[in-house]
């Protein structure tokens, strides 16, 4: 006896389903629960290759099988059934969900690491999802109509064809995931708070609220799938990104080490010092008030080197061919104010153009 669904059985079943597609979805599910095992048993009895033709020889074509079942069950005939509603809207709603899940996953994965402009990208790709929400929550599109789309059925068949222990394992993760995703999103909030603009906090906050507030609803009301699934995908993306970060730090890849210079709460990778004549000092050594060297990590083409207090440290640049170069020298010039010829110790000379930034100009 085969435990996996035979492709021929799956195809026969799909065609039978299609021929009965006008029936209520719940009744159709019941029928499939009955005849799925039946077809598997017939397939097991077939000599040689199991094909749709071989099954049809025993049972008639899927369409004949469906017609016989329909007659015996006393369902209305397909012709007298109300015409099937257009599949265009359910299809749109389904693919809007798929797209938004993928985008949310991608935002989770990339948005945190790269601190890209997640707001505008997210909003742009959310527009179809917003439209889907309107359609599904005002009842224009029933979740069952979406579930009955051929592509949705095909997707479900793929999931159902997974070995039972895989599905069981994923199910067993559910309670843990309930907690993990909240922790993950909270971690993401902290990470973003430390690095990127506050605007990027928007998505994790939305996802967090959605998952805590609406997550339980999706179990009983399938419409909430359209809200909860993208939020979950976002959390999965962030979880993978955080895992990747942790792994990268553990194996010592090019992520920056945890040291550096922090002045007024900002972290600096490099310090440039200029003399009163506006000329850069190419070799200065930094110490704090206790004589302890103030060090920054030294970037290099082969990864980070030991931190040093000798400033400025070289920069890493990539040329047009993508080749890495280590560059010394100052990426900008400054004009030292000449009004006060002898700056006092309390007056810090302010560079006028351009303001030095932590990122060397490209």
């Amino acid at each position: 006896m085969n435990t996996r669904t035979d492709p021929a059985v799956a195809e026969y079943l799909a065609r039978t389903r299609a021929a009965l597609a006008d029936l209520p979805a719940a009744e159709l599910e019941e029928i499939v629960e009955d005849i799925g095992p039946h077809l598997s048993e017939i397939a097991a009895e077939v000599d040689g290759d199991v094909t749709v033709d071989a099954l049809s020889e025993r049972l008639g074509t899927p369409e004949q099988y469906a017609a016989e079942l329909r007659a015996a069950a006393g369902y209305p005939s397909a012709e007298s059934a109300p015409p099937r509603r257009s599949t265009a809207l359910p299809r749109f709603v389904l693919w809007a969900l798929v797209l938004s899940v993928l985008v949310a996953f991608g935002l989770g994965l990339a948005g945190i690491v790269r601190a890209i402009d997640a707001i505008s990208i997210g909003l742009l790709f959310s527009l179809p999802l917003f439209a889907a929400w309107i359609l599904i929550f005002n009842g224009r599109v029933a979740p069952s109509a979406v579930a009955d789309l051929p592509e949705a059925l095909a997707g479900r068949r793929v999931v159902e064809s997974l070995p039972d222990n895989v599905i069981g394992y994923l199910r067993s993760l559910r309670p843990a995931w309930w907690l993990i995703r909240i922790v993950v999103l909270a971690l993401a909030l902290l990470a973003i708070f430390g690095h990127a603009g506050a605007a990027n906090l928007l998505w994790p906050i939305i996802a967090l609220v959605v998952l805590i507030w609406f997550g339980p609803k999706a179990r009983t009301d399938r419409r909430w799938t359209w809200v909860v699934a993208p939020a979950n995908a976002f959390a999965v993306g962030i979880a993978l990104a955080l895992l990747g970060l942790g792994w990268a730090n553990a194996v010592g890849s090019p992520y920056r080490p945890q040291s550096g210079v922090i002045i007024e709460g900002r972290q600096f990778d490099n310090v440039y010092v200029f003399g009163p004549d506006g000329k850069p000092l190419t070799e200065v050594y930094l110490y704090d008030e206790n004589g302890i060297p103030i060090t920054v990590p030294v970037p290099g083409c082969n990864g980070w080197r030991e931190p040093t207090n000798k400033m400025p440290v070289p920069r890493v640049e990539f040329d047009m061919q993508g080749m890495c170069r280590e560059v010394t020298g100052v990426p900008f010039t400054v004009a030292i104010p000449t009004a006060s010829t002898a700056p006092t110790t309390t007056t810090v000379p302010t560079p006028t153009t351009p303001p030095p930034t932590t990122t060397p100009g490209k």
Partner: protein
Amino acid sequence: MRHSWPVEISQLLKGVLDLAVLAVLRDADGYGYDVLRRLRQAGLEEVGDASVYGTLRRLYNAGALTSYVVPSEEGPHRKYYGLNDNGRERLAESAKTWRSFADTMDSLLGAAA
């Protein structure tokens, strides 16, 4: 006058399949293929696979059957059907109707022969 000759057993079966399915479920619950096999073993060779499944659904929707899924370690999970009180009542009534109908037919055919 139109004759379809010989009388197909499957034509006759259509009218009594409900009764036959109820009868094979009287002693023990069964899943679809099980019911099908019991019918065939009892001599109803002509019964169509899909007809049995359709009949099970009709009887279930009419409230004559209960159903429950039995997980199986190997092979697909099976949905069992069984008679409930309503089903047993229906079986008793249908059996009575059938017997009187069969008697009528017997005497009719006896007279014709």
